């Protein structure tokens, strides 16, 4: 589904990704771990199409289609979703109106009519219940004054609404207490299927106890230096990232 080949990316001439290779198949959950500054969030942003980053070499493709020339919204229309580490606050637009706009714009791009209002409301109700989101929350301004946990829950709620093919969760666990983490992880698990894939980006192993990955990759200095199964995450937790750094040197 997602295929990243020898990806090099920089921001303002500073190299951040130095040849990332990654293949994600439908039904899989991949975790990308790594120390601060290793390029994890950059990788997520580059896949989502952020224009601040310049792809110098290599390619990203989704279902065989090269994404390079596609704007972020076009990538979204093809089924890519990114949950933000720091979701942006937008006072003046309610969660509900934002979702309606997002869903109908995506439908429009696929040549579909707007979703009928009653169907939209039903969908919103269903998904918000799944994430234990209070009804009042829906009429609040998007992320405006939300707690860290509410913001993350709202990200996963949007993911549930958009039903992406490929979801990239960038540090979804940061700023969450254990209860919020459980709710968010349960939400993500309910969305797992044989048709979609999830890439979890995280610094800590904690989230992976709840969202169990099929593969774990370690990103270091802009490259994937080690790949393995979920046991690798435990090993990392135990030995710390210094272990990887030392191995690199050797």
């Amino acid at each position, binding site marked *: 589904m997602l295929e990243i080949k020898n990806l090099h990316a920089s921001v303002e001439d500073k190299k951040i990704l130095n040849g990332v290779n990654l293949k994600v198949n439908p039904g899989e959950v991949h975790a990308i771990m790594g120390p601060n500054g290793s390029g994890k969030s950059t990788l997520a942003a580059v896949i989502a199409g*952020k224009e601040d980053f310049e792809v110098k070499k290599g390619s990203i493709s989704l279902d065989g289609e090269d994404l390079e020339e596609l704007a972020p919204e076009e990538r979204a229309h093809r089924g890519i979703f990114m949950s933000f580490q720091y979701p942006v606050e*937008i*006072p003046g637009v309610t969660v509900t*109106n*934002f979702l309606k*706009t997002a869903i109908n*714009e995506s439908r429009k791009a696929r040549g579909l009519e707007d979703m009928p209002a009653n169907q939209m409301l039903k969908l919103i109700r269903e998904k918000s219940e799944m994430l234990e989101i209070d009804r009042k929350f829906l009429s609040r301004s998007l992320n405006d004054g939300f707690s860290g946990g509410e913001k993350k829950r709202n990200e996963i709620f949007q993911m549930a609404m958009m039903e992406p093919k490929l979801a990239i969760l960038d540090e979804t666990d940061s700023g969450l207490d254990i209860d919020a983490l459980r709710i968010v992880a349960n939400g993500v698990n309910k969305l797992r299927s044989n048709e979609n894939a999830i890439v979890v980006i995280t610094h800590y192993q904690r989230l992976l106890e709840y969202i169990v990955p099929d593969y774990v990759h370690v990103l270091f200095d802009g490259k994937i230096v080690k790949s393995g199964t979920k046991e690798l995450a435990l090993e990392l937790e135990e030995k710390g990232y210094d272990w990887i750094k030392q191995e690199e040197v050797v």
Partner: protein
Amino acid sequence: MDLSDKLISSFLAFESNVNVNTPVHEIRSEAIRNFERKGFPSKKQEAWKYTSLNSLQKTDFSIFPKGEQTLEYKDVKRYFLHEIDTYKIVFIDGVYSSYLSETTHDGVDVCLMSSALTKPMYKQVIELYFNKVASREESLTNLNTAFSKEGAYIYIPKNKAPRKPIQILHLATGNEAALMLQPRNLIIVEENAEVQIIERHQSLTTNEVFTNAVTEIFAAKDARVDYYKVQNDNASATLIDNTYIDQKGNSNVSVHTFSFGGKLTRNNLNFYQRGERIESTLKGVTILGEKQHVDHHTLVHHAEPNCESHQDYKGIFGEKSTGVFNGKIIVDQIAQKTNAFQQNNNVLISDQATVNTKPQLEIFADDVKCSHGCTIGQLDEEAMFYLQTRGIPRKEASALLMYAFANNVLESVRIPELKTRINKLIANKLGVSLGFEL
């Protein structure tokens, strides 16, 4: 002959049509002398640095409209907030239209300034209030005072509130090639009384209209006044709005100014707090394009302790439009525990648009909270990216962000139907087709 000379010489003709043996006329006579001495403000004055009235002064405006014009309600319905029942005071080319209006004397007075200025029953109130808060220095206010004769007169007695909001609508038919209007409004809200007012100036053709309006508002102890100014006029209309508000203890007055149109609009909005625990709210949304110009000059004078003022002005400027915000806050030495907040945020969506914004704080008390912030910028790229990753294309994302930016000011609008109407005007003005119903 330039406009200033024409106005001064017209004063004699004006006098032949009013009763000159009244205290009001003494005020008018003094005002025309003040105007004669000062003339129109020029760009040399700091307060008018960015707003030029030069071309206006060269235009040959009719000062006294010829005869009465009539309009059918269906042709002007859209300029009313017609979704709800309201009292209406409507003027066509400066002349009262009883046909389009709905006034009342049922417990409250919602009627005409011309009656209030001439009928004996209002004599006492007029002597107490007329020109008591309006400036005697500002030359355009003097000019209006000199010719003050018609406008809205609203009197809400103690503990009363009219059954419904009041609309003041000024329509210009274009019957004259260039018309000058000088409406004068007087609004008195007595102790613990309440009123909601919506005001709009609308010209119906592309003929030039120059309106120099003065509104005096008196809010007595515990009174509540919400005033909404809808400025969405044609590109040939100039509006100088001079609003003066006198607030007594515990009163709450809000003025919302929605500036979406007109060629040149200048809002001089002045709040004078004369009591304790007063709340003053000044909010504005300005969305301009073409070569439109809007200049907001606000003044809040905190003269007593324990009062608050909240100012929030948002502007979106496209094409070659220009905006000015000058927010002056004075806190007297005695006015301890004042909370004064001021915010002016602007977004430029064109390389050729300009904004000049300036907070002006004069604080003489030491135990106060005053904050101010002015920003001029483009749309937040991080927010754009966020919306795009949710499948919203760049153009729609930028419209949505601008809509959100402006819309945020509307939260304090207390008439839901008006809020919806303004929402729609904003969406329209931004050319947004939003994916949701407003």
